[in-house]
């Protein structure tokens, strides 16, 4: 379990020397095997929160514990980074090596594993994201979605319990987005890896077990997708989009009370209207 306990994070802005509160007394427990989506506007603090989970940033006040290990504990830094993997937004800027398999091997190499064991993990990880056929290719020859899958394989090869996805689909085309989301869900359901998806796409948040909405460094809403997305007015107030189907359901519900308000997908809507 990852326990975020009353975390506040202050940034000093270079230009103005002003202190900015990026996180303001945030508390959140992330359970094992959970798929959780963190939603919010640019600058709401969701990326800052993500970087606290594997000690890339340390809290100014409060604590973050990964499986009861405090991230501020420098002696456990590499254990924490191995347990909590992180996939970043720009697929190009997280691939280090000149071939796909060398890149996937980067994490295990840093952990000082034996070559034979590295080889085994690289092959497994590439198979898991369906990129085995590309193992000798240069990263620049791949599409955005493929690069992001290689980046995910690079994380899986380290056998993490948790993977934080920091807006992994923001720079991808629709095909790439679908590839990455499918991989993410498979890792969560079949491999039992806890997924924390930082995003601003509502369609992605609907797929999660739990949705957390952030605004100005605080958690303002939290619950299952159905609980969160039925609060259409509140979300609109925060200038967040609501999944179109959820918005339609809310509108219909206003007119016709027998239509349920918590409909998230097109399939659900179809069965609701034509049972």
């Amino acid at each position, binding site marked *: 379990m990852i326990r975020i306990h009353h975390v506040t994070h202050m940034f000093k802005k270079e230009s103005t020397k002003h202190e900015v509160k990026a996180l303001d007394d945030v508390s959140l427990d992330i359970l094992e095997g959970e798929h959780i989506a963190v939603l919010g506007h640019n600058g709401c603090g969701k990326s800052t929160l993500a970087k606290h989970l594997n000690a890339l940033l340390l809290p100014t006040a409060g604590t973050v514990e990964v499986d009861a290990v405090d991230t501020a504990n420098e002696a456990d830094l590499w254990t924490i980074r191995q347990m909590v993997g992180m996939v*970043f937004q720009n697929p*190009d800027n*997280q691939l280090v090596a000149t071939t796909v398999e060398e890149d996937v091997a980067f*994490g295990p190499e*840093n952990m000082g594993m034996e070559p034979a064991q590295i080889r085994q993990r690289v092959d497994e990880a590439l198979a898991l994201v369906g990129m085995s056929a590309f193992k000798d290719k240069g990263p620049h020859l791949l599409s955005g979605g493929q690069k992001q899958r290689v980046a995910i394989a690079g994380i899986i090869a380290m056998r993490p319990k948790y993977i934080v996805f920091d807006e992994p689909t923001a720079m991808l085309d629709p095909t790439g987005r679908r590839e990455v989301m499918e991989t993410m869900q498979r890792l969560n359901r079949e491999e039992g890896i806890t997924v924390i998806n930082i995003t601003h796409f509502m369609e992605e948040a609907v797929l999660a077990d739990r949705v957390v909405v952030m605004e100005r460094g605080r958690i303002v809403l939290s619950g299952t997708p159905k609980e969160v997305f039925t609060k259409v007015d509140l979300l609109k107030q925060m200038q967040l989009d609501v999944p179109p189907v959820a918005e339609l359901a809310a509108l219909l519900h206003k007119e016709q009370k027998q239509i349920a308000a918590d409909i998230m997908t097109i399939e659900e809507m179809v069965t609701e209207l034509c049972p």
Partner: protein
Amino acid sequence: MLKDITIGQYLSGDSFLHKLDPRTKIIAVILYMVSLFIVNNFWGLGAMLVLSLAVVLISRIPLRFFFRGIKAIVFIVLLTVALQMFMTPGEPLWELGILKITKEGIRQAVFMGTRLILLVSVTSILTLTTTPISLTDGIETLLKPFQKIGVPAHELAMMMTIALRFIPTLIEETDKIMKAQSARGADFESGNLMERAKAMIPLLVPLFLNAIKRADELALAMEARCYHGGDGRTRLKALQYGRRDAVAGVFCLCMAAGAFLTRLL
């Protein structure tokens, strides 16, 4: 257009030289360079010439690659030959005012010219038969013993790897920025040298800014993947010497010893 640029000009193949360990090849090239400058008579030079031709044939690299390399240094070779010919003191063969060609001068010119051409051809075999990755690995392992005296072997190799990784990415980006600027009326092709250099500024500014941003993000991603320098780091593909390397090593030592012996003739 920029996509045509290749770095390191590696030519894939499966010759004896392609299969050698990169460390063996680097050491062999060093020994070859030393030998080339040890020999001081025509017997030795002739032997080196025959040997170099043999290596070129073993590498199975088309000859045009070597001619291309020699073409690139033709000016330097001519300059060296001319300087040696006119500036070496000794028994004059031909004189015109202050210009004079001496017997020793011609000898020196032939030596230096041949040496330069052989040097460029044989060292280019190293990059032609070795992938940039294994070349980097080779340099890293060879420099490792010097780490104790402050040579940053791992860091150098890491920098080279990242540079190789990002060259295609940055070329692609340059292409994109150029197209974006051209679409808004920028002109990179006409004008004199000064004007063209000036037109490059709006190209370089975004390119550099982006490169710095990339470096920042890459450093973060590397840290998140437990990167903490070369200490305790292992490799997926560890370099390994084979029987081939022993053969090549013995051969190179013989060459160096032979070169030394020719001086006694």
